[in-house]
């Protein structure tokens, strides 16, 4: 062997790539441990019956079902539609009521004789 040692041709890693990988590695490790912390339940609460609503016991499904925001919203929406349409329909009632009264005033009043009016507009008399 000669005195001069030759190092092999190796394409190394860029510093930046190493740095990024390190950061990602540390982050994932940290996050995974942080996530796994969620599994940490006090051992005494394991396999215990929780009869309260908060504990998911009896009646919890009722409270959940009674507080679904989307259903609550739907019903509020129909209430609003009821009020809006109700107001609109009332306007229509009054509008027609008034129109009917005007039209009624144009008609021959009960007991009124207007014989000549019939002949005047060219209609045939019976």
């Amino acid at each position, binding site marked *: 062997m000669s005195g001069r040692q030759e190092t092999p041709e190796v394409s190394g890693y860029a510093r930046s790539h190493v740095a990024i990988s390190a950061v990602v590695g540390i982050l994932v490790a940290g996050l995974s441990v942080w996530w796994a912390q969620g599994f940490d339940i006090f051992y005494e609460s394991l396999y215990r019956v929780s009869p309260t609503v908060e504990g998911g016991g009896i009646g919890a499904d009722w409270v959940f079902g009674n507080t679904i925001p989307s259903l609550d919203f739907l019903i509020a929406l129909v209430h609003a*539609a009821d009020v809006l349409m*109700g107001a609109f329909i009332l306007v229509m009632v009054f509008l027609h009521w008034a129109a009917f009264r005007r039209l*009624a005033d144009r008609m021959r009043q009960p007991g009124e004789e207007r014989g000549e009016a019939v002949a005047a507009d060219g209609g045939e008399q019976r």
Partner: protein
Amino acid sequence: MSNLDHGKFTRVTTLFHSLLGLDVFLLFFTGYAIMFNDELWWLLAVMGGASGVTAIHRITGIGLIALIVFWIVLQIISPTGRGNFSEILPGKDDFDAFVQDVQFMLGRADERHPNARQFAGYKADEVPLLSYIGKGVVFIFSIELTLLAISGLLIWSKTGLAAMFQTKAAAMAFVTFHGLLGVIMLMGVMFHVFEHGFHPAFYPVETKAFIPRSMVPEYHSDEDEEPDTTGIERLSLSPSWRTMSSIFGALTVIGIVSVLIGSIFDEGYPVPRELAIGGGPTSILLTIGINVGILVLGVGLVLSMYGNVLRIRWERQMEEEREGPAATDGGREEPSDD
């Protein structure tokens, strides 16, 4: 001069309208006997209590779906239905008709717009197939009936709904939704009864919806002279119109307002923690008002039947007139008008 107006409904339409009316009235009477059960306790009792009312509601519900599907199919497959589709689309004329109606109410217009005219008279040629109110009725009732049928089917078996949402309480939300949705139609039908029962020229019922077009002779004026008016001034006002229209107008308003107020307070979802009797404020005024609303609908049902009685009488009269000359056995023949 009782037949100045052109009929607008075909025979099938008159029949469909009567059946739909009967079905919807029964759905109202049973459905609101459930929703307003403390105000309409007697109605609940009359129709067989809780089980009777729900049974009638379900049977008429099936009937409603059958009627809706029948009508949709008929409108699609028949040339008449397809041809009429463009006639029911609202346009600028309909908005103008509404504006002119407001002006007519205030005395700033002399006539109702052709798109608003219920009594067409001499000007029948100007009047479209449907007035702006008629178009509104078609659209609003179509949407309402579709949503009511779907939500009604969803609450048909509440256990299925409870399973879908994995909770019992959610089923109640759909029952409430169904009931509140029907309130719009309930109020609309009250207006519909007033509109078509109390027009002074047609009082007590507009026969247009009951006597088919094919049976109504058309009046055509002389070509050269175009009449200036609809001719309403030649009709005599019924002596009872003023009193009855005032009473019924007031009842309609009271009924609509009461049902609306009742629907706001009669909460079903979220299901309240405390057991409230009837679920809302039980006031004597509201009780009377909601019963007035049911009375208005009851009058509507009676008027619908009366319309059919008129149609039968009309048919008989037409038949007698047709058979008149043929049946002569040497008797005197009545001189005919035309």
